[in-house]
């Protein structure tokens, strides 16, 4: 979909949290993406490599944690993962369902190097 806009937001969030922690470099960014949020990992990574250039996040690794969709039936309280296009409750056929998981779309954490590496130390 709009991976560039998404990647720009991720970069903005990572840099904003890194600065007050005294980061000289962001090494890793941990994303949590629910199954119901459509996003293409490779595309985000592609944009990331381009737009993080010359920032503290240059070269940082992106980690995607996928959360499978989980639904709960309002009628019989059964919790299940939807199977294909049919979202109805497999236990009772109920049509009133609630999304319990799979909606996630967030930056969970970042790893930073808190101080400048001493001269001569390999990166």
């Amino acid at each position, binding site marked *: *979909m*709009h991976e560039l*806009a*998404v990647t720009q*937001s*991720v970069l*903005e*969030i*990572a840099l904003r*949290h*890194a600065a007050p*922690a005294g*980061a000289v470099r962001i*090494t*890793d960014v941990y*994303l949590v993406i629910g199954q*119901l*949020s*459509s996003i293409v990992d490779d595309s985000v990574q592609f944009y990331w490599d381009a737009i993080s250039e010359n920032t503290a996040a240059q070269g940082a690794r992106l980690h995607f944690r996928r959360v499978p969709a989980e639904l709960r039936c309002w009628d019989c309280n059964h919790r299940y993962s939807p199977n294909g*296009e*049919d*979202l*109805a409750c497999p236990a009772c056929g109920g*049509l*009133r*369902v609630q*999304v319990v998981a799979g909606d996630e*779309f*967030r*930056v*969970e*954490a*970042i*790893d*930073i*190097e*808190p101080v400048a*590496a001493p001269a001569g*130390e390999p*990166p």
Partner: protein
Amino acid sequence: MTTQRIPVVEKILSANDRLAEQNRARLDAARVLGINLLASPGAGKTSLIVRTIQALSPQLKIAVIEGDTAPVTIDADKVSAAGAAAVQVNTGGECHLDAVMVANAFNALTLDGLDLLIVENVGNLICPAAFALGTHLNVLVASVPEGADKPYKYPGIYRGLDALILNKIDLLPYVDFDLDYFRRGVEILNPGLSFFPLSCRTGEGVEAWMEWLQKQAAHHRFSADGSASTVGK
């Protein structure tokens, strides 16, 4: 080199959500009901807007923000001809409107004195679902020729709706459209959703939509606090 883990836990599109809240506050201050009109290309968003202006503009003062990916003013011209203020927003190829674009469009409009602001989103059933604009209600225009499977294929957008229109019902005799299958898909994603089957071409069914919309606008205008509903909707 040792690294340090910094917990963040922030929604990726939180910046858009914050700006959407500001947009909402501007609409509420001016007591304007904002509608985010969604659809795939060609479903009849602009036809519905023109019909709505023609039917309601004596009673309601309406303005329209027209989102388009290309710098053409076809839709804005139709809306202006129907008698409403129109602001054209070109997304520059982006697949959706976002809160920044809508905030900029607000600056080209006089919100005070308006009753209803319709934001015609970019024709797309995926991306607009993720970007809150600050409008109060999400309304989707589905149409018969698209096929009845769209709620199953695009659950994200159907889940966040406050009303659903099925346009082009005059084509039902000529098209294989399983209305029961369509309704079932909608019901499971969004139980009890207000549903308006209609035809912008023949006018069949448009009355119920107009009544619903008028009711929403009146309710919004007279409610002491128009910010009761949530931005994410």
